[in-house]
């Protein structure tokens, strides 16, 4: 008889690339952690959130049963290790917190194909064919393999499953396990899930003013956050905001200290200068 299936949502990451807590980012108005727990809980006997010690007081996480990492700074495998030791008789459906496209059908496919005779059941990555350790079922027998893996100084759970006796499945929905690590990936994922076109992100630009434009703008430079796609749109915005009186036809544009076209796409961090009619000599 197979071990009872518990659920473990990994929410102890530092989200360094995202620069905000991934557990709290929202899709359709629901934080990712709550979304994932709502998927997981109905499919398992008990569902837990894996946390680092300092996250125990976090209200979002403490709304659920938590398992605290025993090994600091060991990443996801530390969370899996803690769960296997907290409840040695259970198998664990382990989930990462940053899988916005994960759905119940994918989890049901995994559970239906579970092979308790192996140390784990996992999907093959749609990207590299290797086992996906963070949407996988880890059997009680995997505890010894995890111990051995950690004892050799290794931390990567994917590496562990790649060399272990694992049942491997093919994803029915190839995108189901795409994860989200950066702000732009998050924006694209939200757009996909919420059916909206991704908005042009605001760019941080520096604008310098010279001569007549400097006098009209009342400043020699400013930092601007703008969704303008090019210099033409930026000038239209600034013209309205600053009361600039020169027509675009009278001006030339420089971006990052070189002449540029009005239509050239602007990038974050660009310095833009609108050049009034020149009068050297």
């Amino acid at each position, binding site marked *: 008889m197979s071990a009872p299936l518990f659920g473990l949502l990994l929410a102890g990451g530092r989200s360094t690339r995202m620069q905000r807590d991934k557990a709290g980012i929202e899709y359709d108005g629901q934080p990712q952690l709550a979304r994932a727990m709502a998927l997981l809980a109905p499919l398992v006997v008990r569902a837990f959130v894996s946390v680092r010690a300092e996250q125990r007081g976090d209200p979002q996480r403490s709304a659920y049963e938590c398992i605290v990492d025993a090994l600091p700074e060991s990443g996801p495998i530390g969370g899996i290790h803690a769960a296997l030791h907290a409840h040695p008789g259970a198998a664990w459906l382990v989930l990462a917190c940053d899988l916005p496209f994960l759905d119940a059908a994918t989890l049901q496919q995994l559970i239906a194909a579970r092979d308790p005779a192996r140390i784990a059941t996992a999907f093959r990555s749609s990207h590299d064919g290797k086992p996906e350790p963070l949407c996988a079922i880890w059997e009680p027998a995997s505890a010894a393999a995890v111990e051995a893996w950690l004892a050799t100084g290794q931390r990567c759970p994917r590496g562990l499953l790649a060399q272990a006796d694992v049942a491997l499945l093919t994803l029915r929905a190839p995108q189901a396990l795409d994860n989200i690590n950066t702000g732009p990936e998050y924006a694209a994922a939200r757009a996909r899930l919420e059916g909206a076109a991704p908005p042009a992100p605001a760019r941080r630009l520096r604008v*310098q003013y*010279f*001569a*007549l434009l400097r006098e009209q703008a009342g400043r020699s430079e400013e930092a601007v956050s703008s969704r303008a796609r090019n210099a033409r749109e930026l000038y239209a915005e600034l013209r309205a905001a600053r009361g600039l*009186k*020169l*027509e675009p*036809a*009278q001006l*030339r544009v*420089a971006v990052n*200290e*070189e*002449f540029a076209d009005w239509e050239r796409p602007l990038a974050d961090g660009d310095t833009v*200068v609108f*050049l*009034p*009619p*020149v*009068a*050297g*000599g």
Partner: protein
Amino acid sequence: MNRFRFSNAALDTAALRTELADPACGGYAAFEGWVRDHNEGQRVLRLEYEAFAPLALREGERIIAEATDRFGIRGALCVHRLGALALGEVAVWVGAAAAHRDEAFRACRYVIDEVKHRLPIWKKEHYAGGDSGWANCERCAAAGGADDGHHEHGHAHAPRR
């Protein structure tokens, strides 16, 4: 040393000339642009120049390189003043040295023409009576951008080929 430069102080044209000294050169031509006491019917008392220096330095260097290529001169140099200038001061200086006089004259003329058209440099004129205005801008602005054909437009232009 850069072949196009800015200066905040009065130009020492004799010293600039010696920078071009070259025993292989038989011809040297120089141009000085001076601060004039009138412009477009107004009495001018003094001027102020300002520039978008990083771009102007780069573009100025390109102009000198173009003149060198086109006319086969051995050396050229241009210095433009910035800040406040009094009547009679040298606002811009160009020197060109070549084996023969023709290349020197032509290169000198090319450099000053291109500098006036292409470099992001602006001139504010202060008039008798207290008014002031940016040369090539104010009438442009009043005309709503239409080129009325009666004054020299000072838009920065792409290099003429």
